[in-house]
Structures are given as structure tokens and as C-alpha cells.
């Protein structure tokens, strides 16, 4: 680029945009909205039982759905790579369907569609003394199935990233395909899978809010209800800002956990000390090679 851009070329469109915005805002007229900052502060600093249970529900639904998604993803990936054609077809149709239709449609179809036709009416289930309503079950089922389709592709990419020589070495030692996958390939693929998996779970934490459509009282629904009735009625600005803060808290905590997991999985990787993980500094400025490590030649 080098050359400086004449300031007018930048400024002119910018000021035009600002002017336009000002006009629009002016057109809306002065707002009569009464801010009540206490609602925001209280919701974040002193969350009531309703909010806490919403957070808990969002978190638990996300975790269970993600675990289902990972399991389905492993099977979906292996199915898609199977030597047996019918297994490949099933996996392909599954992935095709759940990636090709909106999650919202899947949720409503699974809960209302299956329910009203009495194919499955989602009765509450008692699990360790806790009654789990049908809507939550249906929500987890839909989120898990949907996630499994995406995880299938992620897991498959992870498996394909591993040198075929690894599978050959495992086989030559007398391992079956299944054992080689479990002991040799998947643990290595995990390192490749975890970063996109982190993305998926981050998404999952937020996507649970779609369960509003079947009235699962998770985090979003909690704030939505507070906005609809009770002492905080019609304070969408403060309430949904608070909801955003809580989602941020969840996703941020997950980010920290993810970084920790990635460090744990990095063992045996070039530039990584055997015992510890990759420090931030090494990540940013490149790792040092352990002494006696091969330079360039030789493979893994």
C-alpha cells in the first residue's frame, strides 16, 4: 500500500454515513424509554433463582447435546468411510438431512411433529429422582442429532489428517481396525478435532436459545419471560443485555477450558516439550525444537 490515502476519500463516505445515521435516529424521535440499570446490574451480579436455573439448563443441555453429537460424529465419520456400502448410505443420508434442514425445523418437527402424531409423545422421564420434561428431552435429541451431522465431517477430517502409515503400523502389529481406531488413530485425530469442536460447543451454548420455540426455560427464555411479565416487564434493553453478558460468561469460560485441553493433547507434537504443553509464548513466537530432534527429514 505504501502511499497515504487522501483523507477526503476516507472521510467523505464516513461522514456521509454518520450523517445518514443521525437523520434516521432523529426520525425516530426522542425515546421515552426509561432505563432501569438496576435490572442489568442485579441480573448479572445477583442473579435470582430463575436466572440461575436458566443458566444451568443452558449449560447442561449444551453439554449433553454436544456429547451426543461427538458420539454420533464418530459413528457418522466411520460410517461415511466404511467399506460396506449400505452403512455409507445411511451415514450420508443422515449427514445430508441434518445439515440440509434448519435446526428450528428439526426442533419443532421432533417435538410437535412426533408428539401430535403420537409417534412419540415425549413423556417426562425420571432420572435419579429428577423429572425431565419432554420438551427438554426433545430439545437435547434435536440438538444432538443436528450436532452429530456437523461433528461427522469434523471427525472425518481429523481421521483423514492422520498419516495412513499409522493405521498400517497398527495393523501390522495385529490390531483390528476398531482397536487401531480407538488406540492409535482417534487419539491423534483428537488434536485436529478439538479446535473446531471448541467452535461447535461455543455455538451450541448459544444455539440452545432456539429451544424457545418449544418453551424450554433455558437462559434466553428466562430473560424473555422476565421481559414479558413481572416487576421487570418491558425492559428489553437491560434484560437482553444481561442475557448477552451471561452467554459471554459461558463462552469465555469454555474458551479457557478449550485452551487447556489443546495443551494437554499437544504431547508428542513437534516443538512441544514432552511433559508440558505449548506456552503462549511458544505459540506466538514458534516453538523450540527439543535437543536431538530430527531436522526436517524423517517422518512421524
Amino acid at each position: 500500500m505504501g502511499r497515504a490515502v487522501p483523507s477526503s476519500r476516507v472521510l467523505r463516505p464516513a461522514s456521509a454515513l454518520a450523517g445518514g445515521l443521525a437523520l434516521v435516529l432523529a426520525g425516530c424521535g426522542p425515546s421515552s424509554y426509561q432505563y432501569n440499570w438496576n435490572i442489568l446490574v442485579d441480573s448479572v451480579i445477583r442473579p435470582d433463582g430463575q436466572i440461575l436455573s436458566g443458566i444451568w439448563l443452558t449449560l447442561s443441555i449444551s453439554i449433553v447435546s454436544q456429547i451426543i453429537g461427538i458420539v454420533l460424529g464418530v459413528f457418522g465419520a466411520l460410517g461415511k468411510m466404511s467399506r460396506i456400502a449400505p452403512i455409507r448410505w445411511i451415514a450420508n443420508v443422515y449427514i445430508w438431512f441434518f445439515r440440509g434442514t434448519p435446526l428450528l425445523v428439526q426442533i419443532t418437527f421432533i417435538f410437535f411433529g412426533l408428539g401430535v402424531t403420537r409417534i412419540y409423545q415425549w413423556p417426562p422421564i425420571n432420572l435419579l429422582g429428577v423429572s425431565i420434561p419432554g420438551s427438554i428431552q426433545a430439545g437435547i435429541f434435536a440438538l444432538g442429532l443436528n450436532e452429530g451431522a456437523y461433528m461427522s465431517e469434523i471427525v472425518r477430517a481429523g481421521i483423514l489428517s492422520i498419516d495412513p502409515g499409522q493405521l498400517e503400523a497398527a495393523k501390522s502389529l495385529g490390531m483390528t481396525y476398531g482397536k487401531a481406531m480407538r488406540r492409535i488413530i482417534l487419539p491423534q485425530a483428537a488434536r485436529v478435532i478439538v479446535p473446531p469442536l471448541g467452535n461447535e460447543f461455543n455455538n451450541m451454548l448459544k444455539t440452545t436459545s432456539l429451544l424457545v420455540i418449544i418453551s424450554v426455560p433455558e437462559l434466553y427464555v428466562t430473560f424473555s419471560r422476565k421481559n414479558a411479565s413481572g416487576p421487570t416487564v418491558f425492559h428489553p434493553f437491560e434484560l437482553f443485555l444481561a442475557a448477552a453478558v451471561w452467554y459471554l460468561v459461558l463462552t469465555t469460560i469454555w474458551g479457557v477450558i478449550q485452551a487447556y485441553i489443546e495443551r494437554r493433547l499437544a504431547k508428542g507434537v513437534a516443538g512441544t516439550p514432552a511433559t508440558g504443553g505449548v506456552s503462549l509464548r511458544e505459540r506466538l513466537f514458534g516453538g523450540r525444537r527439543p535437543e536431538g530432534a530430527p531436522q526436517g527429514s524423517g517422518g512421524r
Partner: protein
Amino acid sequence: MVKVGDDLLAAIGGLPAATSPLVVEAEGIHKWFGRQHALKGVSLTVRRQEVVVVIGPSGSGKTTFIRCVNHLEKIEEGRIKVNGHLIGYQEVDGRLKEDREKNIALQRREIGMVFQRFNLFPHKTALENVTEAPIQVRGIREDEAKALGMAILARVGLAHRADAYPVQLSGGQQQRVAIARALAMKPALMLFDEPTSALDPEMIGEVLEVMKELAREGMTMIVVSHEMGFAREVADRMVMMDDGRILEEGTPEHFFENPQQERTQAFLSKIL
């Protein structure tokens, strides 16, 4: 130079017993890769304790051949027996049908393989690489497997690197771990697929030392390699492959002093 224990096989309880005097019987092997006819009727017999070195230009089918011996490659025609058992196939009404995966895995326990690019498991330490199959495949106890692993690693001169990950090892060290890993399964036959050709020159010696020791102690081996010093020293027989066929077979003396085929002479003159 790395010191190799002169009782290498003692670590695995001595030379594994063979059930047949003929360890490998390959008969009329044909292999196609799509339209490419990679093996055109290869037959080879390897007796117990024999060391056979296979040479030949690249693309001659030598690597493909030894990969067929432990069924890493399917064959289209012919049959291969190891220790008297048909490998990878079962005979049903006079026709060969691919065996069940479980049986193939069972058969492979008896056949150790060392790869050109080592193929160590990068997420496991040197010791874990060696103990993985004994624990997971043979089902022996972890402490027993560790003792076995350490005994073998010590004899290939790597006891002090047992806890190192492959990436922390030199190429020569990695290949020695790979040999130890294969030996830990107490195989009756060892296959070596160009074990030194991915190594820096100064590391080739340490790997050849281990292989020579194995040969001296009576391990049955098929070695695809162009290390002529190794062949001269320990090979009982050499095999020259070209264009998917065995072109010439004989003792090292025969090959180095009086090769019959023009193609063999030309090839040897290039690599010697």
C-alpha cells in the same frame, strides 16, 4: 556407534518357535493396482532362520511384495503361506476368499514389520510404542509388558530414551524403537521395507547394527534394501526384482561376483 546387545532375542525369550521349516511360501503372486500389473507371478520361499535381501529398481514391486506377505496389500492371484498358514485368505471350494479381519489380525501377530518412514505412534513414548501391542493385542499385563519393553529397548541401546516421544528422537533412534516395537510381539518373521532409506547417512549404521544382530541370532527376515554391505555380511540369499518379477536369485557371492542377468549387472553397477 551404538552398542547392540549380543543377546537381542533373549529379551523376548529367545528365538520365537516356528511351526514350519518354511516360514514364507509365496506362490505365483499377482497384484494389480487398477490397470497397473505390479506383481507378475512372484514366487519365493524363505526357510526358518534365513535372511533374504530383496533388491531392484524403484517400481519393481519389491515393497509391494513384502506388503503382500502380511496382507497390507490384497493379491489377485496366487497364495502366500507364513508358518504354514494361508495369509489373508481362506480356501473355499478351491477358491480364495478374503479372510475375516479378526483372523488376518491374528496372523499378523507373527509377522513383524519395519517401515521406511518408521510410523511410530507420535502420541506415545518410545516405551509405550513398544508395549502397546503386547498389552492391547496379546493382552499381557502392563508391568510385564513394561519389563519386556525395557529389556528390548536396552538391547537396541535406547533404555535411556524410553520416556521420549518419537519427535524427540533422531531418525536412527526412531527406527530402532520401531524394530523394538515389532520384536515385542515375538514374531516368527520380520519384514523390513527399506528401513534405512529415510535416514541421514550417519544414522544408517546404528539401524543396520540392530538388524545384523537379529540376523546373527537367527531371526527369519525379508529385507528390502540397497545396503549392499549389509547384504554381503548377513544375507543368505539375495533376490533381484524387476518389473514385477523375480529376475535373479542367489547367494551374495553370486550377485557380487557373477550376476547372470544383464539387468542385474546394470543395476548393481549403479548402486555399488
